[in-house]
């Protein structure tokens, strides 16, 4: 009985001393899937060269630096592709887009051959993040190419399923 009284008093003391008021708020952050793609330059040029001494002409500038920023769902794949809208054209003269190839630097980036019929993989990653790499385009130079100023437009697509 005595013990019970003392115990009750001690518990009451604890309630009195630890006096506090509480309030709550809930933080909500909605982060939608987002992507941003940027390049160091909007165009590259292949200068004239002797096909015998320079069978592969490097672009100017040599490095096309690509910055890929993507925020995606957990472990979702992020892919970057490039496709030519057409073959290389100089008036009515046409050279196949596949004469242009590229090598790369940077994690997740991959080399390839340009196509006008299907997008070609430039890079693949998993999950959100910032990835920076460089493409080095080369043009296959031949004596059989007709003289002319050829051009093509490349479309890059950054996607996540």
């Amino acid at each position, binding site marked *: 009985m005595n013990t019970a009284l003392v115990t009750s008093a001690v518990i009451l003391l604890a309630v009195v001393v*630890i006096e506090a*008021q509480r309030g709550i708020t*809930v*933080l909500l952050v909605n982060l939608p899937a987002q992507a941003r793609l940027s390049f160091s330059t909007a165009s590259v040029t292949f200068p004239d060269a002797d096909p015998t001494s320079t069978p592969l002409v490097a672009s100017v500038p040599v490095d096309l630096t690509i910055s890929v920023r993507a925020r995606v769902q*957990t472990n979702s794949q992020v892919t970057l592709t490039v496709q030519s809208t057409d073959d290389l054209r100089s008036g009515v003269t046409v050279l196949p887009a596949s004469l242009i190839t590229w090598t790369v630097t940077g994690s997740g980036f991959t080399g390839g051959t340009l196509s006008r019929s299907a997008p070609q993989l430039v890079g693949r990653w998993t999950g959100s993040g910032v990835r920076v790499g460089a493409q080095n385009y080369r043009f296959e130079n031949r004596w059989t190419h007709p003289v002319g100023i050829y051009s093509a437009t490349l479309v890059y697509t950054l996607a996540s399923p």
Partner: protein
Amino acid sequence: MLWRALLLALGVLAAPAVASGQQLNLTISPLLVTFPTTDPDTAPVLSAPPVTVQYRVRGNGNRPWLLTVQASGDLISGLSRIPASAVTWVATPAPPFRAGTMSSTQAQTLAAGNGNVNPTTTGTVTFQLTNSWTYDAGLYLQTLTFTLSTP
């Protein structure tokens, strides 16, 4: 023996009698704080609308009072996490309010002072989130608990 125990108990209870006269009031609003949606290049730090903290301390004599905030965990969206420490805050008026970094393991001091705060006084807390491309997309939630006490 019984009387001794009772006297002892009453004596112990008598000491915090003043404390029992303390009255603490705390109101936090709004209940839900939503950060804006902006990509990290545009906004490296996301600022939420301000949270209003209304508090009153009475019967405290010249003793200290403390207002803390603690997250119940990291910000969670399914399996994805943003560490609670990515949330910081700025608060006014300073003092008694102070800026800080959120923790889910330890209550962080939001404001502190001595004596009474009467009538009800208002502070403003603006939570900020370090924005990053490395976060997974998702809808993140976490509860913050504010505690006003006289330690």
